[in-house]
């Protein structure tokens, strides 16, 4: 059973609480006119006049005839108060209770929690980037190792492959120069020289073909009528003598059904040379047969032998370059079969091998029917060139270079020296292309790219980056660039980036 607190005790208690709270009370009339102030302003740290001004601003838009509590309001000067609005007829009172002590306790706790969450987010981002960078570095390391292995393999095989036939050539030439050889001996020497020269020719052709493709300088395949018998005759001329010297029966057949097929004679010839040369050198065969079969335009090239065959695991790698698929000690540059596969694919076909150890091997190239180009047909669409280009770079010299390159590509160029001008120009004129320096002082190029995209710019954007790291490239692409062109700018790479090549 509880009884009411005696009035004396209640009054005593009220005095204690009021003294502890040190309230400040401001009384206002209509129009927020200050009518009076009571309490302790020193604890709040703001004089009644200044507090009234701050409170007028605080209650902008708010009803003044409803009891309201606004906790933890920071006053001018930095102190916090709880503000209580108490309507009182035509007047209202604003009771200010010091909250600085509570804020002093709460702030460090809140600060630590927020700092920890933000730091956790930053850490996650850093770890993601680290993981990405590590993966990219690992990929680069593997690529470098592979390139180094290829280089070593190429040098090792080339030194052997070129020196052996050259040694034979010099030896036989020396004998012929000395004279005294019989007619049969001279014929034998000449055949050996011819065989060595044929081998060297095939080697150099393959190396040049591979180098051309690596440099991107290959020409597209032709689609002209193919004389299969003639190609086979040329191959027989090249390899017939060598086969005879090795005691190998070499046969070549052409079977054409329907009109002569269309294709690229030079590529067909090179594929056959590589396949027959491969069989002669590696198969240890008694018989080799080369065949071109054409059936209403579709072409199949096959070179079969009855040699030692190829193990299944080696078959899977045999078309890889530089002997990577070959057994240790096997001769050759390791380019011949790789080139066969590449040429086949250039013509829309594929190369394959069927073999089993001890049962010979058959290499096949299957090419689809080629269609002659229609002279009346419109030319294929060329990459779009020209139009209006926005060029943003803070360096006038770089701008000049990029402007010239863009003009060579047929663009009318508008130049700006900073990112803000770039965004403004693009918003007003919607150019076809924007070339943006990724790192400009002030608002960065990536920021400009981001803002262009976020404002709905749909033209192509090329970021030109002085920083060649994958992270920088990713940042530009994430901002919305379609392509990133590294500095120093290479004209071909720049054209590819601009045209989307």
């Amino acid at each position, binding site marked *: 059973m509880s009884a009411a607190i005696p009035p004396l005790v209640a009054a005593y208690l009220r005095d204690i609480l009021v003294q502890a709270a040190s309230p400040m009370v401001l009384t206002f009339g209509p129009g927020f006119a200050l009518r009076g102030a009571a309490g302790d302003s020193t604890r709040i740290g703001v004089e009644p006049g200044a507090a009234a001004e701050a409170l007028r*601003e*605080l209650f902008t838009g708010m009803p003044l005839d409803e009891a309201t509590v606004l906790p933890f309001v920071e006053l001018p000067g930095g102190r*916090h108060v709880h503000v209580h609005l108490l309507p009182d007829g035509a007047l209202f009172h604003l009771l200010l209770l010091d909250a600085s002590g509570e804020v002093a306790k709460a702030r460090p706790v*809140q600060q630590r929690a927020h*700092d920890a969450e933000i730091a956790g987010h930053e850490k996650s*981002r850093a770890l993601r980037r680290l993981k990405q960078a590590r993966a990219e570095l690992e990929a680069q390391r593997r690529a470098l190792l592979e390139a180094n292995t290829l280089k070593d393999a190429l040098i090792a095989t080339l030194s052997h492959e070129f020196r052996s036939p050259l040694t034979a050539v010099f030896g036989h030439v020396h004998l012929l120069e000395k004279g005294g050889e019989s007619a049969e001996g001279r014929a034998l020497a000449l055949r050996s020289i011819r065989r060595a020269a044929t081998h060297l020719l095939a080697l150099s052709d393959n190396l040049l073909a591979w180098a051309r493709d690596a440099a991107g300088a290959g020409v597209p395949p032709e689609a002209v009528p193919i004389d299969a018998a003639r190609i086979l005759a040329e191959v027989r001329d090249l390899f017939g003598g060598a086969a005879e010297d090795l005691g190998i029966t070499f046969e070549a057949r052409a079977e054409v059904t329907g009109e002569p097929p269309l294709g690229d004679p030079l590529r067909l010839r090179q594929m056959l040379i590589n396949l027959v040369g491969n069989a002669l050198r590696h198969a240890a065969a008694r018989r080799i047969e080369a065949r071109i079969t054409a059936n209403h335009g579709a072409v199949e090239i096959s070179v079969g032998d009855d040699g030692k065959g190829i193990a299944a695991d080696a078959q899977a790698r045999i078309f890889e370059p530089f002997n990577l698929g070959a057994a240790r000690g096997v001769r050759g540059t390791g380019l011949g079969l790789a080139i066969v596969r590449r040429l086949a694919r250039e013509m829309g076909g594929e190369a394959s091998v069927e073999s089993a150890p001890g049962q010979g091997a058959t290499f096949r190239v299957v090419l689809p029917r080629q269609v002659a180009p229609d002279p009346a047909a419109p030319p294929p669409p060329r990459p779009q060139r020209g139009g209006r280009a926005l060029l943003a770079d803070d360096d006038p010299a770089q701008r000049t270079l990029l402007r010239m390159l863009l003009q060579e590509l047929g663009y009318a160029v508008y130049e700006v020296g900073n990112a803000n001008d770039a965004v403004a120009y693009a918003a007003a004129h919607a150019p076809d292309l924007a070339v943006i320096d990724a790192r400009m002082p002030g*608002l*960065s190029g990536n920021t400009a790219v981001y803002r262009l*995209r976020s404002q709905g710019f749909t033209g192509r954007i090329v970021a030109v980056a002085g920083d060649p790291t994958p992270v920088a490239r990713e940042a530009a692409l994430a901002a919305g660039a379609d392509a990133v062109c590294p500095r120093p700018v290479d004209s071909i790479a720049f054209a590819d980036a601009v045209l989307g090549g």
Partner: protein
Amino acid sequence: MSEVARKICLLGDFGVGKTSLVARFVRNTFSDKYLTTVGVKVDSREVATAAGPRKLVVWDIAGKNALDSVSQAYIRGASGLLLVADGTREATLRSALYLQVQARTTLGEVPAVLLVNKLDRVDDWEVKPATIAELRKTLPVFETSARTGDHVEAAFAELAGRLPA
């Protein structure tokens, strides 16, 4: 009290830069140090609008991803909202949009402008440009940097121009 004074509130998750945006707008200052806001801090600045000068009373409310009863009390009487997100933390964009929805229960439909802040760190942004382009269809969006001041003035001016007379 000026008749053209209007209360506007900044709403957004913690650490998105609300206090820094106000400091840039009101005092043209910036501090690298992050100091969490407790409760609310009120500042003001006069801006020119097409309808004449207008005093913006800016409520910088402690960052939260949802409005509690205290925050609902803070926003009473607001004529407009500045929704603030941090471009480097995509979750804060969702928070800003959610806060706008919650604020409707107290304020009804009021003008709102979205500020996606920390443009100076665009390389770290998680918010995609396509997301911003999509949001622009429904409300004004400004990519801002309190650090450099980029588009801060424009964002406040945009809201000021949309406030009721």
